[in-house]
């Protein structure tokens, strides 16, 4: 058994990406990984907070890190935004002693202190590297042979470096998809931005970026897209009909969390994987792989 402290983030725990949390938990169990949720964690603050009030944004994420530090385990999150923000606080703690002192002064008001020792990991990193693709392949019960999957990393799981994979041409998700028996299609835009939270404030800007991704995935023969981030999933799935309307296209590409694909391959009951939450239905594409 491997143990990690788990930071689901707002979207996966109570928001639109519950299917990610469910499938992550189910797959982790199958891989003998225990994800122990951090008690009373708060929102990481995400990009918006870092753009409004720098000091407060560091304090918001440092509270989580200070709580996790007491546990002494790696802190793993399935959300790329949480991953980037928690790591940002870690590197600021290493590089800026004055900031570190100030954040700790604020944390002291809540009887906390952070020493900067928590190792923040993304769930993809844990599965692809701690568990490894060989181990994953050995757990596959019904392989996904023939399913063409576009491996979409998005930005924040691989940048800023140094991370666990190449910042512009990563391979870990490609390898993981192949270990499930599926085909990872070429995807030149695999680390390009989905539009992020600008889909709310500047929808046209974000839809243009998301459109390019759907276009690239589709023209390279993908039948579905695998994502590692709640926001990427939302922009590509929930907004797909608006993209079709705006660009007069007819994309019908299911956008799945990589853990959902792992779940099918592992033969996990599909009801615990949350497929009904996909707006673009994956029913047809997955028909041959899901036991009925």
């Amino acid at each position, binding site marked *: 058994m491997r143990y990690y402290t788990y930071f689901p983030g*707002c979207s996966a725990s*109570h*928001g*639109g990406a*519950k299917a990610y949390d469910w499938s992550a938990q189910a797959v982790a169990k199958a891989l003998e990984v225990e994800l122990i949720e951090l*008690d*009373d964690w*708060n*929102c990481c*603050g*995400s*990009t*918006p*907070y*870092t*753009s*409004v*009030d*720098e*000091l*407060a*944004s560091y*304090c*918001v994420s440092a*509270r989580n890190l200070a709580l996790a530090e007491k546990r002494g385990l790696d802190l793993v999150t399935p959300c790329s935004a949480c991953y*980037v923000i928690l790591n940002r606080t870690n590197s*600021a703690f290493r*590089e*800026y002693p004055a*900031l570190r002192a*100030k*954040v700790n*002064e*604020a*944390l*002291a*008001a*809540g009887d*906390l202190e952070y020493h900067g020792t928590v190792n923040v990991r993304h769930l993809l990193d844990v599965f692809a590297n701690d568990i490894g693709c060989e181990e994953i392949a050995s757990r596959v019960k019904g392989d996904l042979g023939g399913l063409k999957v576009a491996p979409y990393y998005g*930005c*924040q799981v691989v*940048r*800023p*470096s140094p991370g666990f994979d190449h*910042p512009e041409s990563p391979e870990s998700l490609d390898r993981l998809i192949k270990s499930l028996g599926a085909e990872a299609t070429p995807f030149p835009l695999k680390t*390009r*931005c989905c*539009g*992020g*939270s*600008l889909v*709310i*404030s*500047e929808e046209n*800007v974000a839809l243009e*970026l998301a459109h390019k991704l759907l276009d690239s995935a589709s023209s390279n023969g993908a039948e579905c897209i695998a994502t590692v981030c709640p926001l990427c999933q939302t922009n590509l799935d*929930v907004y797909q009909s608006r993209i079709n309307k705006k660009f007069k296209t007819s994309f019908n590409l299911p956008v799945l969390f990589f853990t959902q694909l792992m779940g099918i391959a592992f033969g996990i009951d599909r009801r615990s994987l949350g497929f*009904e*939450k996909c*707006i673009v239905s994956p029913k047809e594409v997955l028909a041959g792989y899901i036991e009925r």
Partner: protein
Amino acid sequence: METKVQGSNTFLQEICAIPGGEGIRLCIQCGTCSASCPNVNRMDYTPRQLFAMARAGMREEVLSSNSMWFCLSCYLCTVRCPRGIKVTDLMHALDCLAVQQRLSSGRTYTPTMYRSFSDFVYSIGSVPEMSFMIWFYLLTNPLRAMKMMPMALSLLKHGRLSARARRLKPEAERQFKAILDKAESLGGIR
């Protein structure tokens, strides 16, 4: 490294005082950031131009521009910068200065969106997606909220829109607030 009349250029000093902001002194104006940016075509000034203007002390022009609000935080510029400047962090630093000095651009909804988001984090320690979106639309363009109805309904139908917010235990919420209030009394990053 000295680039400009240091001492008289307080704007540059303010930027350098923010973690990640100090890298602006290292910029060699190569434009790799601008060439890498997926949103550069939306910006009043490209990142390269923006940094040159900031070093020239053009506070108002820089802080009231829309450029940094179109940063997607994709970090492509950061990993490519030959001088190791944390370009994305620098853009966020400019965002914060614009907010502090009440100069943020009125030509994009992004500052208000960020503010609506951080207000929720500050008040309850989490972001309930539906309430956050409604709040944002009320603050900016309530009519747009109507246009989003079909999408909201489809999210509801698929069980992806929950009205219930995640709340911290009362003692944890008090701790969280105490930390943030202390942060505020410490007067920001400098």
